[in-house]
């Protein structure tokens, strides 16, 4: 969920959703009957805690997690289903490929920020290959040539330079994140926006605003289409904690600096 989604529409939705989500929370019901202690409690175990993540804003996050569920259910997923129904699979794949290719810009800037020469060269070669031979990113011949994709973003860049992830944070629509990664997302979006505005590929049409908005919107739908995660689908009552743990650990591992073998 974190990927893609940017700029104008994003900002507007963000404000709206925040307001809605906050309106929806609060309320903790009153216990109706007298509570009795449970047969087993945490105090009887002298073990290390595990799979836990620093999450001082859990209440906010759990509200947001629920909000995302409803947002998905009533708006986002119906939109994605409509898109999947109306578009042939072949076209969907080309569209995904197109946006993934655009995402290479973010991968490239961030591998440069991390001074990773070889990786930057690979990513740049990928972008060039797929933009030309791959017909503007509709196809991905670069992978077949052995050029591996390296996912990068500014959150990882910060992590690479030693910035701690900070508290866990569930963002509206984007989903699991952290304080650091949220900052990273903002920076990546700003860079994307800057580059896009500078190039202004549809400026000559005199209608660039509706076209840009359309491209962004399709990107948002495509991002959700590619993401198979569904809130509360696992039927596991501790799903929130599992998602939190996996997200945090993945990010920590993938943004860490490689260690030398000695």
């Amino acid at each position, binding site marked *: *969920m974190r990927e893609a989604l940017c700029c104008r529409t994003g900002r507007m939705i963000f404000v709206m959703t925040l307001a809605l989500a906050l309106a929806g*929370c609060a*309320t*903790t*019901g009153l*216990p*109706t*009957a007298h*509570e*009795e*202690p*449970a*047969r*087993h*409690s*945490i105090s009887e*175990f*002298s*073990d*290390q*805690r*595990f*799979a836990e993540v620093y999450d001082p804003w*859990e*209440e906010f996050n*759990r*509200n947001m997690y*629920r909000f995302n*569920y409803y947002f998905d259910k009533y708006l986002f997923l119906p939109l994605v289903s409509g898109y999947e129904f109306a578009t042939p*699979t072949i076209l969907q*794949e080309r569209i995904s490929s197109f946006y993934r290719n655009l995402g290479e810009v973010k991968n490239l800037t961030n591998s440069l920020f991390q001074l990773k020469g070889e990786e930057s060269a690979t990513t740049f070669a990928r972008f060039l290959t797929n933009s030309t031979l791959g017909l503007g990113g509709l196809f991905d011949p670069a992978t077949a040539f052995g050029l591996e*994709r*390296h*996912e990068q973003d500014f959150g990882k860049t910060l992590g690479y330079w030693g910035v701690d992830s900070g508290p866990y944070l569930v963002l509206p629509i984007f*989903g*699991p994140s952290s304080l650091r990664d949220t900052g990273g997302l903002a920076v990546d979006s700003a860079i994307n926006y800057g580059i896009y505005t500078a190039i202004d590929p549809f400026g000559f049409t005199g209608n660039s605003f509706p076209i840009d908005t359309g491209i962004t919107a399709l990107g948002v739908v495509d991002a959700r289409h590619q*993401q198979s*995660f569904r*809130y*509360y*689908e*696992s*039927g*596991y*009552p*501790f799903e929130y*904690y*599992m*998602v939190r743990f*996996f*997200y945090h*650990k*993945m990010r*920590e*591992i993938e943004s*860490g600096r*490689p*260690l*030398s*073998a000695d």
Partner: protein
Amino acid sequence: MKHLRLLFIVCLVLLPLPTSAADEDYGYPLTGSYEATILGTPVDMIPLFPAKTPTRQLVLDVIPGRIKPPIFFYDEGLRCTFAYQKKKAPLVFLIAGTGGSDRAPKLMNMMKALHQAGFHVITLPSSTNTNFIVSASQNRVPGNLPEDAADIYRVMEAAWQQIQADIEVSSFHLGGYSLGAGHAAFVAKLDEERKIFNFRRVLMINPPVSLYNSMARIEEMLKQIPGGSRKQGVFFNKMLSRFSLFYRYGNFVAINDDFLYAMYTEELFSREETAGLIGLTFRISLAGMIFSSDVMTNSGYVVPKNRVLHHTDPLFDYFLVSTHLSFFDYFNEHFYPHFLKLQPGLTKQALIDLSSLKSIEGYLKSSTKFGMMTNENDFILTRAELDYLRDLFGERGKIYPRGGHLGNLEYKDNLTYMVNFFKQGGTAP
């Protein structure tokens, strides 16, 4: 989070051993039982399915008027996934294994394979999945196979009722894996009396012989870690940091198949540690069942009695407590007392025996509709239990030389065998 499943698999990771075991023509590559169980089938050995399988989600009101605690606010009914054909076709019900939802990855691949071969398919969550406990379990205490089977049967009837106007069905079939295979046997038995579906073919994949014994064997695996299961947190943290370090020392692009393979070849975890990780994964799955059953029965087992949990109330301590409880704790302190109350004088042994295939072995032996698939090295079975299955099913059983517990389920040969089994619907094997 697309790597969620991958990491889940990994977190629990594995793997020493293998080589040799030069087995005939069976091409499933992982020879060790534990590694097969954790790594499953390599992606390029899973058949390629069409990009789209037409499916619909069914949300069933199986127990009208069921009151659902606010913590399960998102549960709107029992969820099944229904993959349909546009023409008349046989319908297969598939039941998930322990903890699995109706969209468990293994279940989805079985569904796609059958749908591609021309079947309607309905997948059902395990009776141990929270969705089932909340929305479909009469007694809210899962694990008693005959009672679970009655619940599952009710779900099947509700599902059928909802879709029968939309599709044409030529015959009904049934399948399940792991605990779901045990359920399939008891559901088929029940169907002989109720006769709603008259199942033609029933396939059991990696079934336990005795549920209790199999659970005990998995618990045994956790005992192999230092300090046993009471120190599983220490163990988990140690394994996790080794895992992280391994990634950072290697030059990996991401936590992907290459990384997993490297972990496998480098033998990052010892055999005992791998066993411990499987045991711990099982505990994590069981924890969901314990918590949900407790909330639904208001038993005061891990959640204080009469406490009403809301959607933002912290649950993490319940997670830690529940994962520290063993299957035996659940059995002795929650499961057995529940059934004893309903049936005074019931002994533990009698309750254990109820959930064993041996309690219906006459039926299983004589009915030609059954088929069974398992593996020589499935660790939920003892040698004696494997021999028992071999005897019980004879020609109707297919025993693969390797694959651990469910590791080879998605392997192309296995899926082909499954599809062909159902294709023979109606005729004796």
